[in-house]
């Protein structure tokens, strides 16, 4: 049905509804009848500001080539830190965002005005928030239409009356700004729910300072640390228990979220544990963090999880990210969140139309910082205006609607605009029209030259005492192309640092707290959160698994090369025995042991290449390296400073450019050689730099357990079968090479190759870091060092298991293991022993998960299927 036909068919009921709308209180919405008012305010300024000119002079001196070189360096640093590359991205694609080294400059005079405007806006929104979840006088007085609250998805009914008795309820606030041609700033978007981007802003600054130190010499730029210090103070003050040292955590939806980098970055910078919903539990009305030493009470949650996902019991029941009972804990005053849960009600562009009058009413002041012109269609005059100007306005829903983003008229056909007209007509209160002013540009360095680009600036504020503190800076995202108009919500393709200039020379603000000279500061060692413990454990395991795979693969490649040169049939038989070992150690079945094994054994090259480079194949070197990066990334602040860089470097650069015909040529062999060196760098860094606390214990438990398991698999696959003497000697040599033990063995046993002596070295020697006994002994010591939930005398399951395994190993006589009877084709006792050891260790791994980590438990919703269905 066309719009005209629909209108003609409108009935009595619709007319009445329209009429009642007409009478709706129109007061409050500041109404602009003519488009272009914003333009007329603008002076025609096309030239650069004084500071921009100075900056450009400095940059000219630098020259484009050097600028590009430094830009690349900055880009590399960003990538390494995870800002532009997400190791958790299943597609493994780097984010296409470019670092622009020309900062956006805000003079100190401009900033003073802007800051005052931002603070005022935060204060205003805070008062509105308090009213919405409190007395709702704004509806009563006709200052806000009821549907902007009751019909808005961000209004969370269970949160009414939930606001704590604190001074400020909006703890954090972020506004996205654009700059008009007259230099004035306009708010294009209020982001009060989850202020996104402050971590990126910080990261940009750090990278900028590293790559372009000279630029900072010519300008006095405000530091950002002050803002983060205010944020930390603000969070500390939210605590209602343990006020001296409150336990604060950062709640993230998890690694799959595209802003996970920022969550992890902020958490590490602020020094708070990064947790997911599953790591927190509500008990007895309090929130607790699962940690290696048991549950720890949490006082404040800096959340990066949408409002409606925070508590599946009272909010969205299908949320897998939240904490059941969180709202009740907040209600009882036992935990505080920043932002306040429910602040999503302010994420409504329609509010912009009401802010000028609300500012007058609530603050007795004019709104200092204007919003882009906004018309809310819930009132008839404004709706008609928007419908009349659909070809000029951007239309957005007041809250996210499934399948509806925003309408940008010049991107749509006439028919598509008609669909929007229908939508607005059906539910006018759900839409606003906004004018996108033409904007000022700033010089930007893109694709090797300097171009003018428009940009969006994200600013960040945090509550402090009675008011707000703004970050003197922000995150500036520049538009993708030279001509593209600025559109809210669309991610800019580039980002740059944002400089707020200060007249005071070089005022040092550090993030560190100042201690009094005689103040006694006690060390605070909190037990490790289970999530971090689990990641450290897997970091250890994957690092070791990478090494084991590398070494075995390298041995095989070496043999392949020998075979190519000497064509010795013994070499071929040796390889045929080794290949299945590779499948077992990497658990990449069927591989060289299952179906089509004969084919693969005859020509192993394709399978070998896959095990080296296939990112989609679990157990391949490439995929294990990615798993290593994924485990290490969230705990990189617990690892030594350079450790993450090594991991990232391995993960990024392991892309062997080898084709099948080159397997065995030595090329892949060389690649693996350099990988093994990097792995040693990683293990050396962790070994030499980590304090022997729980984090180190878990990293090493992972490593020892993995090494023990790999060794067992290797021995099972290579030394359990019986060979003829020549073949056996060759096999033993390969095993010793693979386990990096050939030199030790040769020195100790003077080149007498004998199975029982090999077993003596590789199984029994507790002082030899490649031996099974060493792994078990270390495991026992580390496990004993782990904190206990409750002190008891009875040994825990993990202690029992490792003690059993170690006792079995100590009791076995390695000479007996090589005993053969009659027609045996394998060493049965050795096999049995290795199997038993493996079983102990597999069990141990399961027990560790249960005792110390955050085992995934499926949340299920109850009551969703019960319905009311009584008839009588």
């Amino acid at each position: 049905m066309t719009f005209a036909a629909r209108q003609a068919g409108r009935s009595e009921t619709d007319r009445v509804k329209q009429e009642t709308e007409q009478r709706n209180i129109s007061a409050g919405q500041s109404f602009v009848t003519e488009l272009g008012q914003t333009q007329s305010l603008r002076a025609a300024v096309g030239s650069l500001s004084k500071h921009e000119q100075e900056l450009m002079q400095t940059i000219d001196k630098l020259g484009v080539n050097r600028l590009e070189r430094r830009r690349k360096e900055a880009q590399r640093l960003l990538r390494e830190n995870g800002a532009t590359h997400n190791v958790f991205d299943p597609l493994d694609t780097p984010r296409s965002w470019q670092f622009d080294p020309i900062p956006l400059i805000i003079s100190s005079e401009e900033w003073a005005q802007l800051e005052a405007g931002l603070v005022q806006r935060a204060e205003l929104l805070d008062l509105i928030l308090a009213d919405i979840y409190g007395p709702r006088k704004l509806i009563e007085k006709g200052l806000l239409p009821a549907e902007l609250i009751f019909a808005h998805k961000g209004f969370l009914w269970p949160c009414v009356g939930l606001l704590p008795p604190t001074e400020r309820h909006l703890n954090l606030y972020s506004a996205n700004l654009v700059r008009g041609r007259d230099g004035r700033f306009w708010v294009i978007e209020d982001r009060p729910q989850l202020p996104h981007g402050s971590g990126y802003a910080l990261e940009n600054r750090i990278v900028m300072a590293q790559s372009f130190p000279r630029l900072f010499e010519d300008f006095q730029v405000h530091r950002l640390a002050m803002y983060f210090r205010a944020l930390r103070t603000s969070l500390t003050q939210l605590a209602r228990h343990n006020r001296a040292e409150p336990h604060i955590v950062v709640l993230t939806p998890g690694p799959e979220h595209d802003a996970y980098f920022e969550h992890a970055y902020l958490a590490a910078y602020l020094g708070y544990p990064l947790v997911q919903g599953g790591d927190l539990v509500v008990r007895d009305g309090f929130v607790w963090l699962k940690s290696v030493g048991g549950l720890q009470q949490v006082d404040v949650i800096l959340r990066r999880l949408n409002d409606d996902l925070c508590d599946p019991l009272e909010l969205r029941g299908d949320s897998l990210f939240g904490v059941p009972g969180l709202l009740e804990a907040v209600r009882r005053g036992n935990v505080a969140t920043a932002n306040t849960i429910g602040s999503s009600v302010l994420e409504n562009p329609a509010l912009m139309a009401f802010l000028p009058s609300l500012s007058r009413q609530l603050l007795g002041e004019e709104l200092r910082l204007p919003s882009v012109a906004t018309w809310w269609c819930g009132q008839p005059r404004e709706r008609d205006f928007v419908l009349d100007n659909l070809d000029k306005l951007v239309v957005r829903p007041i809250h996210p609607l499934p399948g509806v983003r925003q309408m940008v008229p010049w991107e749509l056909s006439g028919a598509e605009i008609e669909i929007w007209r229908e939508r607005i007509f059906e539910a006018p209160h759900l839409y606003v029209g906004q004018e996108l002013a033409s904007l000022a540009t700033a010089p930007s360095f893109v694709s090797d030259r300097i171009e003018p680009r428009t940009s969006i600036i994200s600013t960040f504020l945090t509550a402090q005492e009675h008011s707000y503190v703004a970050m003197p800076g922000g995150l500036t995202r520049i538009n993708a192309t030279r001509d593209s108009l600025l559109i809210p919500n669309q991610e800019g393709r580039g980002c740059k640092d944002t400089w707020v200039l200060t007249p005071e020379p070089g005022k040092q603000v550090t993030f560190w707290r100042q201690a009094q000279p005689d103040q006694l500061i006690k060390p605070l060692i909190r037990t490790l959160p289970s999530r971090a413990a689990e990641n450290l454990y897997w970091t250890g395991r994957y690092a070791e698994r990478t090494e084991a795979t590398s070494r075995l693969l390298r041995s095989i490649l070496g043999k392949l090369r020998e075979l190519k040169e000497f064509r010795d049939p013994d070499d071929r038989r040796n390889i045929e025995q080794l290949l299945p070992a590779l499948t077992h150690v990497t658990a990449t079945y069927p591989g060289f042991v299952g179906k089509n094994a004969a084919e693969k054994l005859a020509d192993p090259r394709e399978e070998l290449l896959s095990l080296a480079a296939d990112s989609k194949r679990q157990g391949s070197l490439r995929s294990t390296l990615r798993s290593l990066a994924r485990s290490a990334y969230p705990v990189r602040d617990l690892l030594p400073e350079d450790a993450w860089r090594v991991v990232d470097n391995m993960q990024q650069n392991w892309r062997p450019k080898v084709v099948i015909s080159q397997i065995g040529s030595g090329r892949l062999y060389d690649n693996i050689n350099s990988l093994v060196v990097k792995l040693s760098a990683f293990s050396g860094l962790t070994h030499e730099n980590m304090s022997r606390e729980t984090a180190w214990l878990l990293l090493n438990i992972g490593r020892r357990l993995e090494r023990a398991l790999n060794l067992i698999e290797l021995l099972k696959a290579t030394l359990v079968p019986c060979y003829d003497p020549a073949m056996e000697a060759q096999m033993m040599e390969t095993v010793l090479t693979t386990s990096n033990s050939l030199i030790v063995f040769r020195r100790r046993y003077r080149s007498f190759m004998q199975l029982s002596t090999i077993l003596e070295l590789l199984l029994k020697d507790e002082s030899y870091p490649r031996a099974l006994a060493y792994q078990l002994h270390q495991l026992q010591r580390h496990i004993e060092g782990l904190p206990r939930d409750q002190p008891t005398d009875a040994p825990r399951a993990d202690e029992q298991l490792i003690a059993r395994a170690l006792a079995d190993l100590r009791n076995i006589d390695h000479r007996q293991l090589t005993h053969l009877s009659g027609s045996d084709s394998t060493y049965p006792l050795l096999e049995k022993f290795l199997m038993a050891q493996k079983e102990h260790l597999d069990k141990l791994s399961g027990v560790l998960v249960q005792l110390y980590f955050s085992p995934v438990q499926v949340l299920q919703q109850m009551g969703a299927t019960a319905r009311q269905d009584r008839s009588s």
Partner: protein
Amino acid sequence: MKYRVTHTTSYLYTAPVATCRNQACLLPRETSRQKCLTSDLQILPGPSDLRERRDFFGNRLTHFAIQEAHKELVVTATSEVSVAATPLAPPPAGKRSWEQVARLLATDRSRQTLDALPYLFDSPFIKESRQLIDYARPSFPADRPLVEAVSDLMQRIYRDFKYDPGFTSISTPLAEVLKNRRGVCQDFAHLGIGCLRSIGLAARYVSGYIETLPPPGQERLVGADASHAWFAVYAPDAGWIDFDPTNNQLPMEQHITVSWGRDFSDVSPLRGIALGGGKHKVVVSVDVARQADNMA
């Protein structure tokens, strides 16, 4: 009339639940014509963290957790309520036309109207739509008194829709119910509310029970009842007036109110989140027993 209501909900799991956290909306609230004499919630295994509070709509919510592993959870609410008869004739204020009421809701900001506003807009299960307006239209000609118009709407829902417990589930959207003309009491209540809100009236969902009488000569079956739902419309001066479209009657002495909200999602009798538990089965039994009325 005096009743004793027993509402038992059992969750049976195939695997142990480590912990669970729940919210019950099972204890009857007081209304202008209903008194709650006693009410009690029994929870097995024993709950921790139990607390009762009033929600936004004034309902009695009980929050509780089970912090020990269990394979079965049984929640039994037992209440004694007395319900007074409603006067048959609609109050004089009910003579206002429905347009007048809609206009009042859009413009008036007295305390009474403000309290009705939360029930004027879309809610999780109920979205206003052209289809709902079209269905409502015949009952709402110009200047028709509100109560008369809503009674007509109730009657039409009763006549046009088939009671069919097998057809809909909790997730069946209102549009499907409207298209297929079948559903259960919850669907009919949602439908009525959707029609009323779509034309600018405030309507709420009422959750409760209804007394059922056995056919003559037969024993009443204990526990064979179920929870019931209907809707109420906001009429200025008169307050809220209940309508039961499933039975085509104005709820009187046989309807027992537990709670109300914008739709079912606000007043779900028992909701919860369990950790673990495998698959689960729910068994609900309701018993509404008339008591000797010694208050009369």
